[in-house]
């Protein structure tokens, strides 16, 4: 294991300040609207000290912890997708000037973003969106500009949420790559502190400016113990089998109709999912017809319009829309991008207004096969 350092809370404050000085907009966890959301943070006081979250299918509550931890919760309703792959974005505008039409493409934003408190599952989600949005032949310049300059401070989870299942997806709770600095929150003598791991030259350069000292063997072990404890307390697990093949074998399973009885096709799951990337474009023009523009916005495979082609929607029934979503996440994503499209963050479970649980749906199909198998075995 590489060398690690320790800084106390003053070190974290100094980190936020150093990033601001370098011109970064620092975004991190803070309390807003009864949840832990991601927003601008300027000082330690903006972080949700002493708070945690209770998460279950369709249920989220803020709660107090009995300590003063700054990162003692799992992920909230928003993800970093909000900042890298914006919900609404104008792509271009056009204006009629005499006989000419002047088209102006929206220039990519120049804002430099620093993310504080990125969890392991979220690092994997960002890696997935990188692959989709800038890793192929067609590069999204807006995502690219935000992503390339971004500074990432990861946090190894000290608490697993009730709907987390990163362990079974091999995506957490330890941050292994894709960060500049990674922190593990520790209780040190005389207050809280952080075990710091460097993940990039930019991270090393920044750390050198902060008040830190090398970590002891014992402190490094403590850090590992925190992560191990979190890994052992996952709220959920994806069944341990080849899900890709399982779902492809069961495209006509009766469970799709059963889940469609409950599913509202409201699209919350896709909106909160940190890997879902689908968008639609909308054209606008003013009443006089002199100006027009095109806007891109998040869309979802749960809407009828999204699969509308000449003559109607390809997926009129909710069963086919739920199946499209789940099989894409867990199965066809492998064919398309070489990995799973799910990182086990649990957001779709918590924020589904009727508590539909992707691990439970998978397990239902898996269990039904096992039952059948057992029955076959007997006969």
């Amino acid at each position, binding site marked *: 294991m590489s060398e690690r350092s320790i800084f106390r809370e003053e070190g974290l404050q100094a980190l936020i300040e150093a990033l601001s000085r370098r011109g970064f907009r620092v975004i991190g966890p803070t309390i*807003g*609207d*009864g*949840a832990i*959301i991601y927003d601008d943070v300027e000082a330690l006081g903006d972080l949700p000290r002493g708070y945690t979250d209770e998460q279950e299918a*369709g*249920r*989220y*509550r*803020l709660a107090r912890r009995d300590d003063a931890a700054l990162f003692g919760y799992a992920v*909230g*309703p*928003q993800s970093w997708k*909000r900042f890298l792959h914006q*919900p*609404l974005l104008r792509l271009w505008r056009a204006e009629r000037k005499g006989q000419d039409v002047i088209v102006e493409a929206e220039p990519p934003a120049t804002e430099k973003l620093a993310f504080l408190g990125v969890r392991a599952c979220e690092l994997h989600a960002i890696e997935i969106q990188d692959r989709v949005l800038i890793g192929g032949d067609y590069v999204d310049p807006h995502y690219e500009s935000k992503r390339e300059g971004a500074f990432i401070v990861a946090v190894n989870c000290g608490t697993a949420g009730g709907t987390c299942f990163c362990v079974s997806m091999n995506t957490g709770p330890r941050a292994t790559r894709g960060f500049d600095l990674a922190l593990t929150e520790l209780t040190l003598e005389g207050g809280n502190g952080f075990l710091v791991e460097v993940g990039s030259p930019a991270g090393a350069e920044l750390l050198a400016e902060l008040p830190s000292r090398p970590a002891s063997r014992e402190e490094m072990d403590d850090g590992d113990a925190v992560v191990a404890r979190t890994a052992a307390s996952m709220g959920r697990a994806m069944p341990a089998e080849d899900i890709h093949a399982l779902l492809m074998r069961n495209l006509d399973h009766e469970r799709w109709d059963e889940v469609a*009885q*409950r*599913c*509202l*096709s*409201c*699209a*919350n799951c896709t*909106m*909160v999912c940190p890997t879902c990337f689908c968008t639609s474009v*909308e*054209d*606008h*023009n*003013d*009443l*006089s*017809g002199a100006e027009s523009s095109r806007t891109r*916005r*998040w869309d*979802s495979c*749960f*809407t*009828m*319009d999204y699969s509308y082609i000449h003559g109607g929607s390809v997926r*009129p029934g*909710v069963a086919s829309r739920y199946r499209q979503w789940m099989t894409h996440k867990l199965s066809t994503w492998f064919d398309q991008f070489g990995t799973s499209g799910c990182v086990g963050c649990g957001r779709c479970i*918590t*924020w589904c*207004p*009727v*508590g539909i649980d992707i691990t439970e749906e998978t397990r239902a199909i898996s269990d039904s096969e096992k039952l059948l198998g057992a029955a076959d075995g007997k006969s």
Partner: protein
Amino acid sequence: MDATKKPRLGVWKFASCDGCQLSLLDCEDELLAIAGAIDIAYFPEATRGEISGVYDLSLVEGSVTTAHDAERILDVRKRSKKLVTIGACATAGGIQALRNFADVREYAAIVYAHPEYIHTLAASTAIAEHVPVDFELRGCPINKGQLVDVVAAFLAGRRPNTPAHSVCIECKLKGNVCVMVARATPCLGPVTHAGCGALCPSYDRGCYGCFGPKETPNAPSLSVWLAGLGMDEKALERVYRSFNANAEPFRNESERHGAQDHKG
């Protein structure tokens, strides 16, 4: 459209509170900009005679509640190249469609000293139940931005931006925290048509369903969850019965719980 002639826009009023027309007046700045390019005529409910010619685009507010209305809408349709209904009254019968669940004569007897003077139909119905409609703009009241977009879209010959998906999508685009998940506040957003910009959830309230049912709504499933949040049969009967009470998916769901309640 004839390029040399200004397009004619007619605004027609049926049974309604005028709220949607207020949204139209609220578009003053946008409308003034094109005042030279378009003729706008307003026809209040009582208008008789003096209506001549054909309208390129008719905006119809209000529901049909009298025999006179039922005839007038036929004439409006004949005079309109495109007919767009605006608001919950015109599109679903409005709040006055609560009469459809009761005996209107009984209502009139309670409210009026001389109910014999009241000439009204037994039900309040949407414009589309009487004539073909080219487009229905939802909302109680309609959203000003959507109205401008629909008029601009019809003038430009493009598709209006009025997606039929859930209010939840608007909520998430805005970055709201879901009030149902985080606060156990009952919300009709998951079965309601987008358009308001998730107004109520943005102020920590549940959605009241002003824009009516979304595409493929699943109210029975939502009701199960709402019951879990503490709503009884009576409350479920009522929650779907407001501005869009007569929109079929809401009506059916409301009646299902009403029947349960009356059984019990």
